[in-house]
């Protein structure tokens, strides 16, 4: 590039090669891209999307943080993360062989959860605890919502190692510099 001054409104033409080089330099100077996710749901099916996106982004070199709030906090709760469930009742997407209302019968949630877990393992998908471990291994930052901890009586020691308790302001500061922000 030349150091010639460009007047306002004047078109700048650069060749594709120069653009590519400048773009790469600008990209490098800006540091890694950042993904900020709010995980608000604690059902087995909804625990997957934030974790899948987080580990993929981290594998692609992005900086990732997940803020676990409301029932989403269960995903990083030692007492609950191994036993997340999915309910067939009121969930017409669930491939159950019976009418939806039958989902209200005791045991149907356990059955739907078993079915989903089996479908996942048949496709070699990792269970949630392994996903959380992988996320940590790849450097994904995990934040537990302080308000949720208060409301649901979750203590710091109930959360998995590596989960930091944080409030909305802390997450927003992280998300304010994010390239991608998702609420799941």
């Amino acid at each position, binding site marked *: 590039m030349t150091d010639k001054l460009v007047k306002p409104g004047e078109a700048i033409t650069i060749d594709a090669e120069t653009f590519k080089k400048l773009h790469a330099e600008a990209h490098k100077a800006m540091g890694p891209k950042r993904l900020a996710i709010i995980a608000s749901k604690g059902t087995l099916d909804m625990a997957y999307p934030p974790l*899948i996106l987080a*580990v*993929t982004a*981290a594998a692609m*070199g992005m900086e990732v943080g997940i803020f676990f709030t409301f029932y989403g906090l269960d995903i990083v709760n030692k007492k609950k993360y191994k036993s997340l469930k999915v309910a067939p009742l009121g969930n017409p997407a669930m491939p159950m062989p019976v009418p939806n209302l039958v989902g209200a019968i005791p045991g149907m949630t356990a059955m739907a959860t078993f079915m989903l877990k089996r479908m996942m393992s048949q496709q*070699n998908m990792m269970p949630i605890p392994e996903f959380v471990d992988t996320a940590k291994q790849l450097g994904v930052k995990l934040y537990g919502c302080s308000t949720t901890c208060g409301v649901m009586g979750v203590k710091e020691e109930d959360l998995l190692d590596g989960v930091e308790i944080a409030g909305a302001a802390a997450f927003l500061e992280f998300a304010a510099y994010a390239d991608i922000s998702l609420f799941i």
Partner: protein
Amino acid sequence: MTNEIKADSTLDCRGLLCPMPVVKTKLAIDDLQPGQILKVLSTDKGAKKDFPSFCAETGHSLVKAVEDKGVYTFFIKIKKA
């Protein structure tokens, strides 16, 4: 194939769904040196688009991508640090 690319390491991700092929590829790349070539096998339908995106984002170069009977083979050259 006459001029087959010589891979320094091979990662078999056949039977794994997204995001595992990409995640395992990242971990495998961490163990390799710049300039080395990683060969990845995947049967995930998304891999066809995922690997070019992964390489574009990380800066590693996708030297070659082939599909044969539902198996995608990618040759990734590790970028200089």
